[in-house]
């Protein structure tokens, strides 16, 4: 089993940390994992993306031609990565700020209105966990239990009281996602 995933959006949306949680979740399941971020000024509001590979075998290149799953959180990322999803692959996007929805017919496309819901529910900081929940619903590459372990590892201990809130957000995301 090998999952090649790109998560792309604005800096500050939790793109890199969502990738990190996914990576740690894979680690709890004894998978081989690479996490490769775009780095630099992105974290101050430009576009940010991270490539996460989960695999049963040793991973060669951390840099990829195409992805099994693309999680797209803004229009510039849609423009850049829609064409990079492998035929038969999965594209998940948040509807907020997407002016040109994806048009490909050879991939499975899902929409999750995580940004709006998270903010309506007063939980906008956990936005990325809603999205992660959506991903796990349609592509259960790791178990919820591993994700909670992954969250525990990637969050500093002083934030561990936020774990239940994150779990709620993940479960909420699982309800929100819909296939187009």
């Amino acid at each position, binding site marked *: 089993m090998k999952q090649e995933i790109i998560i792309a959006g604005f800096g500050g949306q939790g793109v890199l940390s969502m990738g990190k949680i996914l990576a740690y979740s894979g680690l709890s399941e004894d998978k081989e994992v690479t996490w*490769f971020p775009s780095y*630099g000024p992105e974290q101050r509001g430009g576009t940010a993306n991270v490539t996460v590979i989960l695999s049963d075998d040793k991973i*060669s290149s951390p*840099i990829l*031609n195409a992805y099994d799953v693309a999680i797209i959180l803004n229009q510039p990322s849609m423009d850049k990565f829609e064409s990079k999803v492998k035929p038969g692959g999965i594209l998940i996007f948040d509807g907020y700020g997407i002016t040109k929805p994806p048009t490909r017919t050879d991939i499975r496309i899902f929409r999750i209105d995580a940004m709006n819901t998270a903010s309506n529910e007063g939980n906008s900081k956990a936005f990325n966990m809603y999205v992660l929940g959506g991903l796990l619903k349609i592509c259960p590459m790791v178990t919820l239990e591993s994700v909670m372990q992954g969250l525990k590892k990637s969050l500093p201990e002083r934030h561990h009281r936020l774990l239940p809130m994150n779990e709620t957000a993940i479960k909420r995301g699982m309800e929100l996602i819909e296939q187009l």
Partner: protein
Amino acid sequence: MAEEVKFMKGNEAIAHAAIRYGADGYFGYPITPQSEIMETLMDERPWETTGMVVLQAESEVAAINMVYGGAACGKRVMTSSSSPGISLKQEGISYMAGAELPALIVNVSRGGPGLGTIQPSQADYFQTVKGGGHGDYRLITLAPNSVQEMADHVALGFDLAFKYNNPAMILTDGVIGQMMEKVVLPPQRPRKTEEEIRREQPWATLGKTKDRKRNIITSLELDPSIMEENNIRFQAKYRRIEENEVLYEETLCEDAEYLIVAFGSQARISQKVVEMAREEGIKVGLFRPITLWPFPKKQLFEYSKKIKGILTVELNAGQMVEDVRLAVECRIPVEYYGRLGGIVPTPDEVLVELKKLVK
């Protein structure tokens, strides 16, 4: 007991490995994409545990001269930076080579020239393996291709530096520095005691004892006949290093008709290219120099007797390709593919270039 598997960035692995090696000191100045090295050291506070000094110097030039000072006392000291900062350190590196001082220098290189970009690059290959600073000297150069090797090469670099009394460099880039992977860190070793340093580094300036002459650490020698002798001694040492310390890795090379030669991050990408090409029936293998100096010349020459061609894949305008061509003495075609200024090629792109060579 199974060793604990950690998950971290290449830069972080270097910091942890340095503490566990029992390094005495780190002196640096922040620059992207390697700032996590000093950040991690500061977070770990090794001065409270092993006694390792971690100091943010006022500049790269100050940092390399602090390394010179530490090394002159026989201490295991290191610095790290990225390309523009490494350029600033070149005077110090040349002086250390001339004074025969061991130290570890890490270059998490970025696109240049000048301030360039913060994105990954291997454009410092020439600077690293052909000199960089002035004078006829060589820098032992290691090129890790994984987070595990980032950790392992800290001990390897220090050990080689102290074996030959010569500075050693880890030459890597932002792909390996910023990427997170699994890593097993080495066990914690104690720092060398003063008695051990006096025994193992009798040249160290730790304070003169009555039973010996004064130790003098310098690269200056105004008498040209002595300076020539010094240079001859350095060259003999470099030949010994070339004879004994070459490291490389071969993947699917046994039946290969073509080779990709690539190091560091580009070896990882090229490994995928080899997998893709093999699926299409192209008999290609990956030859990965782990030491860039000493370069695996003899091994590549042997391959030139049985293969049809070589493609080097580099994040520069074609630098290592010159050493590969020299190694195979132009007996077979050696082509190059690379991207510049911080762009990293995808495996697809490289496969297209490989097919041009195979055709």
